[in-house]
């Protein structure tokens, strides 16, 4: 470029990249490195930090509360991911048409998506209220004596799952919708000329062609669910009796309530390992499919 040589060129590049790079170093890359270092220390922020070697990791493997939080997180995933995927797929299939009034209906499914998690969690805490909540009232009308939901060890997690499915349904449906709209029209036209009915088309065209989308959506849903937190914090704070503790909740508790910065950082790396595992699995599966094809 004309006249752009030497220090002047460097100056321009610096001008463009430095605001972002400085922030990334200070607020993202630095803290990532610091988090790794922190996991090797005991530090309550009140006294001097103390080198701990691998103490925190040893403690992690023996920490029954962390294992419980991991189990609860996996239970959340086990309930949430299949439910949200099936419902969102059904929703996307019904939304994927030019029916009258569909835009309005589509809007309805996005309202929870754009709302803050805290507001949604409070709202559902109210809906799940055992005595005055709308849900148990509804169940009563059809002759079912509703459980105590968030106050019941067995029902608290299902309630959190229902709330999360309700909030994310529109988002996941949009991802499916994009996949559906990428399927060429003439495939359907050709099969319909051959006399295929709508259900046959769903089974032998839509689902197989949507497989990459289904796979991809399940991966990001799983990765996002590892980080489940605000709904748990607002609805149960990990209770009752620790029945809904999750990994991020452990990080927050150890950092805040117990003042164990080093151990909080150590637990947060469990999340990274989980995300990394799923990502590697995804890449491995994709590569295998690519070779099979």
């Amino acid at each position, binding site marked *: 470029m004309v006249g752009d040589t030497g220090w002047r060129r460097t100056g321009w590049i610096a001008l463009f990249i430095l605001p972002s790079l400085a922030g990334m170093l200070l*607020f993202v890359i630095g803290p*990532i490195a610091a988090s790794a270092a922190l996991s090797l220390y005991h530090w309550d922020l009140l006294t001097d930090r103390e080198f701990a070697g691998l103490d925190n990791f040893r403690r992690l493997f023996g920490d029954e509360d962390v294992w419980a939080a991991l189990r609860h997180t996996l239970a959340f995933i086990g309930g949430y991911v299949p439910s949200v995927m099936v419902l969102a797929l059904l929703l996307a299939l*019904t939304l994927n048409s030019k029916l009258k009034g569909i835009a309005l209906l589509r809007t309805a499914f996005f309202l929870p*998506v754009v*709302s803050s998690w*805290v507001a949604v969690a409070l*709202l559902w805490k109210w809906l799940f209220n055992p*005595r005055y909540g709308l849900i148990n009232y509804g169940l009563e009308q059809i002759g079912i004596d509703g459980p105590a939901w968030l106050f019941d060890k067995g029902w608290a997690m299902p309630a959190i799952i229902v709330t999360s499915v309700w909030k994310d349904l529109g988002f996941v449906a949009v991802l499916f919708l994009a996949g559906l709209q990428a399927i060429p029209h003439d495939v359907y036209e050709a099969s319909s000329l051959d006399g295929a009915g709508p259900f046959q088309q769903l089974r032998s065209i839509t689902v197989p062609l949507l497989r990459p989308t289904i796979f991809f959506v399940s991966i990001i849903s799983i990765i996002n669910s590892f980080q489940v937190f605000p709904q748990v914090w607002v609805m149960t704070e990990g209770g009752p009796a620790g029945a809904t503790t999750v990994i991020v909740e452990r990080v927050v508790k150890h950092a805040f309530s117990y003042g164990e910065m080093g151990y909080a950082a150590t637990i947060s790396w469990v999340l990274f390992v989980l995300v990394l595992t799923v990502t590697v699995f995804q890449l491995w599966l994709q590569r295998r499919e690519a070779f099979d094809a």
Partner: protein
Amino acid sequence: MPSASTPAHASLPVARPHASAVAARRRWGVHAIAAVRYAVLVAGGLVMILPFLWMLSTALKAPGSVLTTTPQIIPRDPTLESFRVVFDVVPLGRMFLNSVLVTSATVLAQILTSSLAAYAFARMRWRGRDVLFTVYLATLMIPSQVTITPLFILMRQLGWIDTYQGLILPGTVSAFGTFLLRQAMLNVPREYEEAAFLDGANHWTVYRTIVLPMVHPALAVLAVLATMASWNDFLWPLFVTNDADLMTLPVGLSLLQGEHTTDWNLMMSGAVISVGPIILIFLLAQRTFVNGMLQSGLK
């Protein structure tokens, strides 16, 4: 979808016995499917809308008429009392302004830093560029919770707990935003800027007058995603604020529930104040929101 293709080929001169009977059956099938679709969508739509109506309805009730065993969907004597009281219980007005300030500052700064960096990654050639871009991408793999403890310690050491800079600054850069805008900028044809450079324009002018206007849709997507993320963010403001006067709405709401566990009318009025603005923005820019969510999912 399958149903849409039926009328087109029904008019084709296909010589088949009972063609009209088949067509009639198919037409009936099309209507049946449309009816099922409507039923599913309307039922689903109700499940989505009803809780919001219940939120609004509870917020409009007088304290005495909230805890009723037979729920009143439409409040008998609607009142704005809760909206008045909730501002006295926690500084909700202040929290609202905090949220507005933090969100606008974060979004503007994030767009500025991300678009500048994206320009450097997409439109300039320099040593280490691709390595650095890979580092940016790699940070996307690391859950934000990993950085939150050291970030909290950093804020304490800087004395930034309970300050606006503590709330705002960590959100002013975004690897995802940089990535999103870089991809958009790669598609801007070189010819435009080459002509401008020949006319003596510098990088700043090219960035401002050529590249930015041409990636306008991507900027809108980033703006929408960043607004939604910042307005609704909970974890970071929870870490960095203790003083109610510095809290944003989500943290303020959770504070409200800690202090008034059974005053559902107060909590729901707080919730209405918190979701109202973002829903309004969503209704105004629905298409950009949906596009944005798509891009955030596809990253």
